[in-house]
């Protein structure tokens, strides 16, 4: 302990000397300075005359965007591969197994570089882009999709949010009803219907205009529509495929953890394949699955920092990289970056604990 204290004392002394030598002092006033560099991809408005604080926010939103997209796709792929591994069909279970073993033993950075430097580079230039039904285009400058624009974005967003809430509420109440009465009711279909019909009704009744703008080739590149820049596409694809292999293993292990007797009991009372899965296996497996799964989601968040290797402007690339080079405020910027990741990690950790507490088996 004394040694640690001495070390800290010497380190702080060195810090003061170094800061004095460079004419710097610790402080966050640089956040109000003009950044003066362009960022290729941002979700919130940005120009080079904006401040470093804005750069920080763009870094966070870009990191969260990649993380959320990678989580969605890796979950879908991972669940599919995990369930396929347990399939009776030999070709399906074998190919899922090969996929998992092939992918998870390669470094994530290698996945990202292969997608960015090999797979997406092999796409043609915009002039010869692969067209998907003349509305979407694949090219080495990015994937161009038709954009949805509306004159009342706030109203539409509100309608979609409301529809989601209503669908969720309906789904819950139908499930509760089914459980109480023992009657078989379709829970998915009404929920899905309300999810689609409510926004459609709002659009129809209020006369909101919804336009599709299609990407069009002008000169050497496309204009209009939404563009997925190659950096984002490569990062999301590589991270989804890499992390799905781990999620597949977690899904497989959690389903295997459900006692075989449970399945046999379900078969004995006449449950079919889907009913067994839905009412017997999944509720028990999810309790085993969720803690490691959320850990894997945290790994995706942390792995998104690899974006810096291919130049996607995430928090590490744009803030910890470029901003440190320009301002020299290494200590403040590294501390802020780490604080963001730590805060999200601790938040999700707390949510896991809450979930564990809520789904614990209550012994009677």
């Amino acid at each position, binding site marked *: 302990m004394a040694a640690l204290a001495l070390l800290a004392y010497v380190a702080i002394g060195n810090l003061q000397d170094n800061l004095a030598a460079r004419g710097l002092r610790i402080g966050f006033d640089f956040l109000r300075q003009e950044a003066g560099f362009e960022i290729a991809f941002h979700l919130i408005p940005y120009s080079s005359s904006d401040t470093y604080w804005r750069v920080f926010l763009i870094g966070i939103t870009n990191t969260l965007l990649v993380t959320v997209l990678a989580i969605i796709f890796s979950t879908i792929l991972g669940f599919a591969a995990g369930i396929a591994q347990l399939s009776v069909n030999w070709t399906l279970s074998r190919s899922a197994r090969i996929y998992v073993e092939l992918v998870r*033993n*390669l*470094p994530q950075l*290698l996945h990202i570089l292969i997608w960015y430097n090999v797979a997406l580079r092999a796409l043609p230039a915009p002039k010869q882009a692969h067209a998907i039904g003349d509305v979407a285009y694949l090219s080495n400058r990015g994937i161009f999709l038709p954009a949805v624009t509306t004159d009342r974005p706030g109203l539409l967003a509100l309608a979609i949010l409301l529809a989601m809430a209503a669908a969720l509420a309906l789904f819950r109440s139908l499930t509760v009803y089914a459980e109480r009465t023992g009657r078989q009711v379709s829970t998915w279909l009404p929920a899905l219907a309300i999810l689609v019909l409510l926004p459609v009704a709002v659009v129809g009744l209020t006369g909101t205009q919804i336009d599709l703008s299609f990407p069009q080739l002008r000169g050497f590149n496309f204009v209009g529509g939404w563009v997925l820049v190659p950096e984002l596409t490569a990062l999301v694809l590589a991270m989804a495929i890499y992390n799905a292999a781990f999620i597949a293993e977690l899904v497989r292990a959690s389903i295997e953890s459900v006692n075989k007797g449970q399945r046999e009991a379900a078969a004995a009372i006449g449950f079919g394949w889907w009913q067994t899965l839905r009412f017997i296996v999944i509720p028990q497996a999810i309790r085993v699955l969720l803690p490691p799964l959320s850990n894997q989601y945290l790994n995706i968040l*942390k792995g998104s920092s690899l974006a810096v*290797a291919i130049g996607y402007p995430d928090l590490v690339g744009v803030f910890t990289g470029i901003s*440190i080079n320009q301002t020299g405020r290494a200590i403040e910027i590294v501390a802020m970056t*780490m604080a963001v990741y730590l805060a999200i*990690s601790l938040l999700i950790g707390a949510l896991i604990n809450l979930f564990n507490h809520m789904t614990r088996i209550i012994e009677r």
Partner: protein
Amino acid sequence: MNDTATILAANSRRPASPASAGSAPRLLNWLRRRLFASWRDALVSMAVITLLAAIAWSIIPWVLIDATWRGASRNDCAPDGACWAFVTTKASQFIYGFYPPTERWRPDIVFALLIVGLVWLMVPRIPKKGYAWLFMIAVLPLAAFALLRGGFAGLPFVPSDQWGGLLLTMILAVSGITFSLPIGVLFALGRRSRMPLIRWFCIGFIEFCRGVPFLTVLFMAIVMLPFFLPSGTKPDPLALAVVGIIFYEAAYMAEVVRGGLQALPKGQYEAAMTIGFGYWRTMIYIILPQALRKVVPGVVNTTISLLKNTTLVMVVGLFDLLNIVSAGVSDPLWAGSQAEGYFIVGLVFWLMSFGLSCYSRTIEAGFARADRS
């Protein structure tokens, strides 16, 4: 003529021997059960087989049939096949990085020592594991460092920015693995310590490392640490990366080991105390041997992720096995050969990781056998 055909047909239908009598129907039965149980299953099987065949059809000609194995530049390679000439020409760069060609016997000796140490440590039948650990932790790093760096006894000095390729990856991975496990054990013990100051320090360190990406730790080591060192000192990036990997992975090792410590029944501690063992003797002779045994899969998983994480040193400008590909394709003669480079590097990483996980399975099976007997 007609008769012969009938006899042949009858013969072929008649079982030739009892063994084949069982196997053909068994195969059919297996196919029916596992591939064609229902028309939906059959459809899925056919779709999967077609897909796999299509993938093999597009990759195998590229890798083997249309590939070019020798050549002086990318132009010598066939356009539709892999250009393995890139890898064969740059092979020594992939292995040694920019290490001076005349001095490459030095990394060779290091590789040989490393193999000796690893075999000693990993083959269960070879005795004296304690000395193997001593060799890996104390002897090998110093010997390897001195030999690679040189600058004494007539050995020319080779600065660490010329080390690269597989050599660098092995330096990072092996030093990371051999040091992070013992340090992780110390942190795991510290986290369960009864002294609050030590406990809080260990909890804080472990949770911090697990909460931030490895890249930010590297950035901290490269851009932030120099502020805390005496002005004028310029730390070696390789040394910083090694220290970063060791401590970052030690936090993960600590959590794995803690799982094993928690799984041990309390009676083990009490029994050790009853026969008068102090804290360290309890830990070393009673608790750790049992706890570590329980967490072999976790330790190996952390080891594999450490091995894969060594590729991140690319962002601090080190040329490890993955980044050496970029160095290779920056040669104008070989521009555009990334696919071949990544293929080979991927193969090496895959073999190392998969080998480690197979090794972990044999170790577990050995423990399971020992427990049963």
